[in-house]
Structures are given as structure tokens and as C-alpha cells.
């Protein structure tokens, strides 16, 4: 199959493109920077550029759309332009190019209004109640994508939950950077159960979705390792792998959420580019449970994770040269 992968320079996009290449598919990658995926045809461009997208989509049978603005900060218009309008353009180009199947890579945060998620499935995306620009625009984009689903153009949404792995800048590097400066608190004693997704598992689930379109099109699926852990233990595991001391101070979750909301506003208003010390989104992620019912996902995708949480932490340790398993 000829497959276009957008956003292939990120941790997950690169892994998806590599997996497709390994499976013998003809892969085109599309992003602003070089993808660095051996065996793929690299197209450089932005999802804000219709012409570039048309070129990249030409001849493709399948599209996996990962390109997005992922950040805790930034102005709303930037998120809208890349995540909502960018998705609209990708859908349009794909349809125009006669693409049959499209997998929209989403996030469980599109359906999260900040309360604990305890063993739920994929609830409908809800832009009105999503917290933060990222979640809101991803929710709108997912609704757009799924609305485009039809018999000739099948669309599925896959929501991997907290993707991490060696070289991950979203979670692992942030945790390590904060912890090494002793700026990573445990919220509410760190007991909230959090499920995560090791990058290899997220990639294989996304590719599985493309192969199982007849079962999954028209609906969102949450993907995770299916191994909920208390967040404190998870952070300690990442810190041990990265050879930095684990967080040792605790802050009440309510205080952190309130402080995060204030900081978020100031940061956005002042236009500062670097990541703020605490955001409401981060505080919620670190202090409330987020884990999911994976039974339907696994059955529909005929897929299961191949790298366990502990295996993943061991690989992380090798990556950071600490060499030993975090346990």
C-alpha cells in the first residue's frame, strides 16, 4: 500500500513511518523538517500549505495524519490554524487524491473535562469542555475527521494515551529536566493511576488501525499499554532510568491546578516561548486518574502491546546510559 504519514519527524510519527516501511509499504513522509526515516520518500512542507499537501497525497491509498501543534502554551489562533484547519486541508487533499483510508491520530484529552477517568472507553470528543488549546483544537479536528467518514473514504481516529519512549521530548525529557532541577512535585502523594503508551505500541496500534479499517472506521479508539500505574511510581521509574533523583516533595493537587491555571494565563498573555513551570493541564494529568478500558480497542484492532511498561523503562535506561532496569 502507498501510505502518506504527516508529522513523521516527531517521536511517534517517525516510529509509524518506520514500521510501515518495515512492513513493505511505499511510505511518503510529510513534515517541515527532514523525517530521517530510511526507505521513505520525504516530502517537506506544512499542513498550512494546500499545494504541498496535494503533492504529497498524490497516489496515496492510505494516510496517517499525525502533524499537529503539541504544546502547553501558545496562542489559540496558532492551534486553530495547524490542528483544525490543517486537518481540514489534509482531509480535502486526501479525498482529492482518491485516498481510501485515513487514520487521524488524536488524544484522549479531547474527551477529558478534568475529572478522573477510571476504566472508561473512548467517549465522544467534546471541544467545549476540553481544557487548553491543544485539547480543544484536537477535539474539533477529530470531529471533522470522523464526520468525513464514508464508504469510499474511511476515517478512523486513534487516541494513544501519553506516548513516551527514548528521545521523547513531551513527557520523558520534561520529567527529567524538571526533576533534575528539583522542580517536579508529586501531587496528592502521586497515587493517581495513570496509563501510558510506549511509543512502539502506539505506532503498531495506529498501523493496525489502517489495516483494520473495515472494523474501526467512523469511530475513535483509545490506545494505551493497559497497565495503569500510580503516577508517583511512574515518575520515579522515568527518573531512575534517566539517572536523576525522583521527586520528593508533594503539593496538594487542588493548589497545583489553581496555580497552573494562573501561570498558564500569564505565560500565554506575555507570549513567552519556553514551557511554564506548571500548567493546569499538567496539574490535572499528574493528580487525577486516567486509565482506560482497552478490551474493545484490542479486539477491534486485533492488536496488543508488545513492549510492557517495565520493558519500556528498561529500554529508557539503556538509552540514557544508566544501563540498569529502574527496578
Amino acid at each position, binding site marked *: 500500500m502507498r501510505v502518506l504519514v504527516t508529522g513523521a519527524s516527531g517521536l511517534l510519527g517517525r516510529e509509524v513511518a518506520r514500521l510501515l516501511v518495515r512492513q513493505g509499504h511505499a511510505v511518503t513522509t510529510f513534515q517541515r523538517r527532514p523525517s530521517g526515516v530510511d526507505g521513505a520518500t520525504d516530502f517537506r512542507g506544512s499542513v498550512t500549505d494546500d499545494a504541498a499537501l496535494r503533492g504529497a497525497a498524490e497516489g496515496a491509498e492510505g494516510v496517517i495524519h499525525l502533524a499537529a501543534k503539541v504544546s502547553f502554551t501558545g496562542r489559540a489562533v496558532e492551534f486553530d490554524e495547524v490542528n483544525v484547519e490543517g486537518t481540514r486541508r489534509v482531509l480535502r487533499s486526501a479525498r482529492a487524491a482518491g485516498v481510501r483510508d485515513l487514520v487521524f491520530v488524536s488524544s484522549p484529552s479531547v474527551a477529558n473535562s478534568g475529572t478522573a477517568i*477510571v*476504566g472508561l472507553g473512548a467517549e465522544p470528543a467534546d471541544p467545549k469542555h476540553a481544557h487548553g488549546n491543544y485539547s480543544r483544537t484536537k477535539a474539533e479536528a477529530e470531529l471533522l475527521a470522523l464526520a468525513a467518514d464514508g464508504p469510499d473514504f474511511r476515517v478512523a481516529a486513534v487516541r494513544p494515551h501519553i506516548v513516551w519512549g527514548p528521545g521523547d521530548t513531551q513527557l520523558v525529557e520534561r520529567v527529567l529536566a524538571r526533576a533534575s532541577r528539583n522542580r517536579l512535585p508529586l501531587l*496528592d502523594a502521586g*497515587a493517581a*493511576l495513570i496509563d501510558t503508551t510506549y511509543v512502539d505500541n502506539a505506532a503498531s496500534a495506529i498501523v493496525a488501525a489502517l489495516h483494520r479499517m473495515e472494523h474501526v472506521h467512523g469511530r475513535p479508539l483509545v490506545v494505551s499499554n493497559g497497565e495503569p500505574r500510580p503516577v*508517583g511510581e511512574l515518575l520515579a521509574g522515568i527518573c531512575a532510568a534517566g539517572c536523576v533523583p525522583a521527586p520528593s516533595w508533594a503539593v496538594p*493537587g487542588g493548589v497545583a491546578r489553581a496555580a497552573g491555571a494562573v501561570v498558564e494565563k500569564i505565560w500565554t498573555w506575555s507570549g513567552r516561548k519556553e514551557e511554564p513551570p506548571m500548567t493546569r493541564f499538567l496539574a490535572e494529568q499528574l493528580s487525577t*486518574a486516567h486509565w482506560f*478500558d482497552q478490551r474493545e480497542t484490542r479486539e477491534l484492532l486485533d492488536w496488543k502491546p508488545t513492549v510492557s511498561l517495565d520493558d519500556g523503562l528498561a529500554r529508557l535506561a539503556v538509552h540514557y546510559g544508566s544501563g540498569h532496569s529502574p527496578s
Partner: protein
Amino acid sequence: MDTPGTVRRWHLLDNGAQLARRGVAPVGTLLCVHGNPTWSYLWRTLLAAGSNAARPWRVVAVDQLDMGYSERSGTFRRLADRVNDLGDLSDALGLDGPVVTVGHDWGGVISLGWALAHPEQLAGVVLTNTAVHQPAGSEIPPALRLALHPVVHRWGTTTSDAFLRVTHSLAHPPLSADIREAYMAPYRGARRRAGVGNFVADIPADASHPSFPELTRIAEGLRRLKVPALMLWGPRDPIFSDRYLKDLVSRLPHADVHRFEGAGHLVAEDRDIATPVFQWLAVHGGVSGSGSPAAEATTAGDQRLNDAAEPAPGTFRPLWDSLGERGTGPAKGDIAVAEMAPDGKVSRSLSWHQLDRNIRDLASGLREAGVGSGSRVSLMVPPGVDLTVALYACLRLGAVVVVADAGLGTKGMGRALKGATADFVIGIEKALAAAAVLGWPGRRISVRDLPAARRRILGVETSLAALVGQGGSAGPGLPTNTADPAAPAAVLFTSGSTGPAKGVLYTHGQLAAMRDTVAETFGIRSGARLVAGFAPFALLGPALGAVSVTPAMDVTAPRTLTARALADAATAIDATVVFASPAALRNVLATQDGVSAAGHKALEGVELLLSAGAPVPEPLLARVQRLLPRASLHTPYGMTEALPVTDISLAQVQAADAEATAGTVAGAGNGVCVGKPVHGASLAVVPLAADGTAPGSDAVTEAGVTGEILVSAPHVKEAYDRLWLTQRESASVPGWHRTGDVGHFDAAGRLWVEGRLAHVVTAPGVVVTPVGAERAIERLDCVGLAAITGVGPAGTQAVVAVVETVPPSRKAGLASPQFAERVRGAAREAGVDVSAVLVVPAQPTDVRHNAKIDRTRLSRWASRVLAGGRPGEP
């Protein structure tokens, strides 16, 4: 009341037309009669269920005249009028075919009036919180007295809607606003409430009341009713309390009764009554007489693991059978029962002769006081001489002993005693004080003579001592020495660690079978000398012909048995057998330094130790063995419903564990090995389904198949007391008792218990039973008790280990990553993937055994913490 030919307009709910449209012929008709001040809306769930039942029923729920949406007649209709009205209505409706009446509150009486008047149509009666008779010597409930008071009556029932509001407020949990609204709707405005006031005014408070003769006629007529009867009761009812239920049961002794603990007057709102009603109708058919489910029991072809020796029928000997012989035999002067004082001396004892004599005398005295066959006598007496005498005296009279131990806690005990509705309470002063303050039912008899003033305060009529004296001088002895083996003999209570304590009813035959099983399985015969530190078996001592001594301890708190007290008791009778609970054994080991050389010598004479009530860990037994070097240590497995079920010795435990580790016996491991069935018992399991329930009814014994454990034995309970639904569920596999425990057999035929069915965790694709992983975790060096529980929705739960550390953690919360990893590793070796590890300073355990972890509470706490809530204490 009305002149012939008068036409009245009725409002009623009726699914007859709907069934006819569907072309369905109903099995029969439920004629539902509401009370005051409700209306046919009360029965809406029966209507829906009647239409949808596998065998549909027509359901006719009426609004009585002057009530609901029926006509306001402008007349005062009394009970007899209302019974006539209902007959007129059923004639007008042309109700033919079998009818089962359903009634609530005063509607219950009216429905029974109709029932008596239509014997040819009547197929059954269903009653919910109602009454037909004011029991002698008691006043009508204060709430009704108030409503009847001339000053209050008109205003309270008619002028205002106070009576309606108060009635609606009796729902537990409270009614939602829209349901309250619906009940109020037909009674807006004083003019529409005349019927409510008249209904209250028609309550016959005494014999002079115009409706008293009709009420009495119905109440007495009930005794002739032979149709199946079902009583569904909400005991939290300030008006129709348990004593009215008891009165109804005495009139319809064949009735099936279910008390919904926690439900109140509006039981049809508080609980789903439609399901049980239609289950009951399915059993009783409503047409073709009453086939009881037990009668359908077939055990042909099913598998069971048992001891081949079934006791031959026709050999029934009542529990007290040998006492008379011993009391007059050659050893009649030897000690039979004794009690120890804290100073190590025997404080009280009776010889076999005295014991027999005291039992006979007390039985005669109790009979004089009114205790008879079927009387319920609550015994609130600590184990020892008095309890033994009282228990056997009651059994000899054919009375039913109700044994609610203090291990249930005051609240649980009160609930249990109210539910069992004792006619008499025999108690120590402390227990009688509680009975007086908390209003527990029954005429009161103290153990000791009390001063007159104290007697008055506590409402005590007489004492055991006085009754023995009266009985002794009463002349002729007891008429017979036999009992009906099928007659009820005792109500014991479950510990309540899985919901409110349940009363468990035993017959004389079952008690005798329990004695024989203990004798055969453990070889406890006449001449054995036992230290009774564990109540249920201790009471069997005299029946077994064994000398029993109660050690100096607070038997309600097993942890109070010290090594010295045990040794003193053993010394006093040269004990050969010791009964002690696991919690008692722990304290014995903790205090063993206090044993003198002579005490050690006495303990060396012990040949057999039985410890039951909760699992006994092997290391604990191994330490006990050093204290009782010559004893064979046994830990029978059983439950209040079947005592005991299996037996295993320490050596057998060790062998089983070794085989589990070595993997040489298929199915060995994953749980606690409890050994093989006791004498006369059979075992099997109903396999677990993927959702963690045991839905089937196939009894299997294949090694390694996990399921709900079934037991069948002559000493299994007769029934749960006044818990028809619970009994039905527990007996749903014909011929077996469902224990609610889960486990499996190994290839050597031993049973391994894996936990409670209700505590099974359903993780994605796997059903996790708790005990295997718990034992693996408890083998870690710094762990006390461990509990496996689940958080999240059934079917996709995350497995959580809650661990008590040694030394105790400072506070409850998340375990350190290092400790969590060790716990996780231990559980993984038992095949269980644990998501989170929490630590607690101490597990919440039950009062009776100090061993059963309150998992409901624990799981609620774990859910809160792991959702991101504040830890607090479990």
C-alpha cells in the same frame, strides 16, 4: 354500606387489555390493594413485570374508593365495607381463573378479606408490611396513636397533608421528587383527603371499635388459609414492625418470608419486589399447587467429592440424647462442665448428674414460664455453665435458640435479634440492659437473681436460678426424650463481613448431624476433655460426652485468651482437646512466657487442637506446635451455614504447600489448602464465568477448575431465617449449599480456597481470585496481612494490593516504588499483575474473628486514593 344497585367509579391499573392485544393468556391475576395513604401507583413495578414475565400475569391494581383517583363517595367506609367493595369490583371485572392477592399496609387486611371470601379462586397471598392483629399486651404503634388522637386526627390526616408527607418520608433511601409528587397527586386539597382521615379513624385501637369484629374475623380466618403465602418485609418501619410479621407468620406458618434489611414501610419503593414476586409465582405456579424447589432436587449424575460413609437414615439421636444416661451412670459424679476464674482456679462446675438435673429442672421451669415448642429464645449468655444448661434446656423443650454473639457488635446484634423476633431473652445483666435500652424484643429472663428495682427497670420477669428451683419442685419431669429431627432448633448468625449478619436456621436433625460429624471426623468421644475457647464447637461438648471447661477470657474477644489461662484450663481437667480461634492462638503465642512448668506439662497432654473461624497461617500453627508438642493440629474449614466442611492437619498443610511449590500435584496451589471433606460431607464447585460470577448449576470436581464451592452434608443449615430470596439463591443448585466462597480441587482431591465470590477481581480477560496472590505477598518478610482488591469497572478492573507492613507504616497511602516492586514481583509469581500497591498501618477486620478484612471498605478507599483523592484512612 351502599344500597344495592349503587354504581361507583373506580380507578385501577390493569394490563389485561394489553395482554389480550398481544394474544397472551395470563397464568392468573394479581389483585393488588394499596394501603393508606398511597394508591395503585405503589404497584407499578408489578404491572410492568407481569406483562414481561416468561409466563405473564394479569395485574389489577386498584385505587380503593375515596382514595387515589377513585370516586369520592362521601361516605365513611369501614373495613367490612371495603372488603365488600373489592368483591363487587372483582365481580364487575369478571375476574375468573386463579387470583393471587397482593396487599400493603391496611390494604393487606382488605386483600386478605377478599381472599377469605373467594376460596375457589384464591391461588396465593402476597403481603408487604401489614398487620391483622394487635399482639396481646402491646399497644398500637405510637405514630398511629398520635394520628388517631382526637386533637390531631382531622388536622393531621385530612385538613393538612401531614399524614401523606410523613408516610412518604418513611422511604429508605428517600423518594425522588417526582415519585413523591406522584404519590401526592390524587390527594391535593382537603376534600380529596377525607378517605385518608377515615382510613385512620377505622383502625380498631381496641375491642370496642366497630371494625374490630371484622379484623378479628379476618385474623382468625387466616389460620385456615392453606394457599402459598409470601411476605416481603421492610423492617425499618415505625408502624408495622417485626412483631406484626411474627404474628402473621404464626397464622400462616407455611409462608415464605423475606426481610429486606434496611428497607422500610414502603418496601415496594425501597427494594425491587417485582423480581422476587414473579420468581415466587414461578415456583408456586399459582395454579397447580405448591411444588417446593427443594422437592425437585435431583442429584443424579452429578459429581461430588465426599467421604463415602453417609449416615444411615433413621438413626436420629437428639443432641442431648446421652445426657440422661450419663447423669445416672457410673461416672455421674465426675465433672461435666466447668468455668475458670482469672486466678487459675475452677470457679464453677457441674457434675454429669447435676448437669442433667439442671437441664431438666430449667426446662420444666421454662415450660411453666411459657416457653414451648417453637418458641424463640434468644440466649445472650457468655459461653460457660449457664449457657450450656440454658441451651440444652431450650432444645429439650423444642424451643428454637437464637444465638447472636457480641462479635456482631451492638448494632448488628440488635438487627439480628429484631429480625429473629425472640419470644424470650435469657441474658446476663449487661445484655438485658442493652435489650431494655434498645428495645430488643422478647420477655426477659436474667441469668442471676436481680434486685427487684433492677428487675423492674430492665423489665425482667424471672431468673434462671428461680426457674431451676420452680422446675425442680414442679414434680413430673419432661414428657419425652425425643425431638422431631425436622423441627427448627437453632438460629445462628453469620459474622456479617459480607453485608448484614444473616440468621441461619438449623433443625434438631442437623444439630445432631453436626455432633456426629465432629465425633467421627476428629475422634472426639465420650471421655475426651476439652478446653472450649471457641464457642460453636464448645457447646457440642456435653453432647459428645466430653468434659468441657471454659478458660478465663472474654469469649467475645478471642484476642483475650492468654497462654496462662489456656494452661490453667488444661490443668484443671487434664485436657486432651483444645478449641481456639486463630486470633486466640496469636495471643496465646504472644503471651507464652507466662506459662508455668506445670502449665507446660498440662499443655503437653493435649492430643488435638482445632482452630477454626478464619484461615490459620502455617507459620502460626508451626509455632503453636512447639507449645503443644504432642497435639495433632487441625484447621477445619467451614462457615456458619455448615460447621465443619473440610479438615486438614498441620502436617497435611505442609505437605500440600510443598507439593504446590514442587508442582508435583496438578491443581495444587493458588489458595489455601483446606484439605478433604469431613465425615458425611460432599464438595463440588460451580465454575466461574469470565465476568467473575458462577452462573451455572453444573457441580464439578475436576482438578484445577475454579468455581463457587458447593457443600452437601447432613449438617448443612436448613435455611436462612426469613430470607426467602437469599435461601433460594444459596440452594439454586439442587441438593447443594452455595457457600459464596471460591476455590478448586487438586488432583489429590484436596480443596484450595481462593477467596469470596464477592471479592473476585475482574481484570481485562482474566478473573483474579485474591488468596493466591495475598499469600505470596504475605510471604515477604516485612508484610502482615495483604488484601487484593480491584478498582474500576467490572471486567476491566485494575488489580490493587493493599498491604499491612511490619512495622506498621505511619499512614495509609501509596507504597514506596521499591516496596511496590517487591510486592508486584511476589504477586506476579502467583500469576497476578498488580497495578498499584497501597500500604495501611492496619487492615480493617471484623470483630468476631479479627481476621476477615472488610474488603468493601478497603476497595472504596483504594478507589478514592487511586482516582487522585486524598488518602485518609481506609
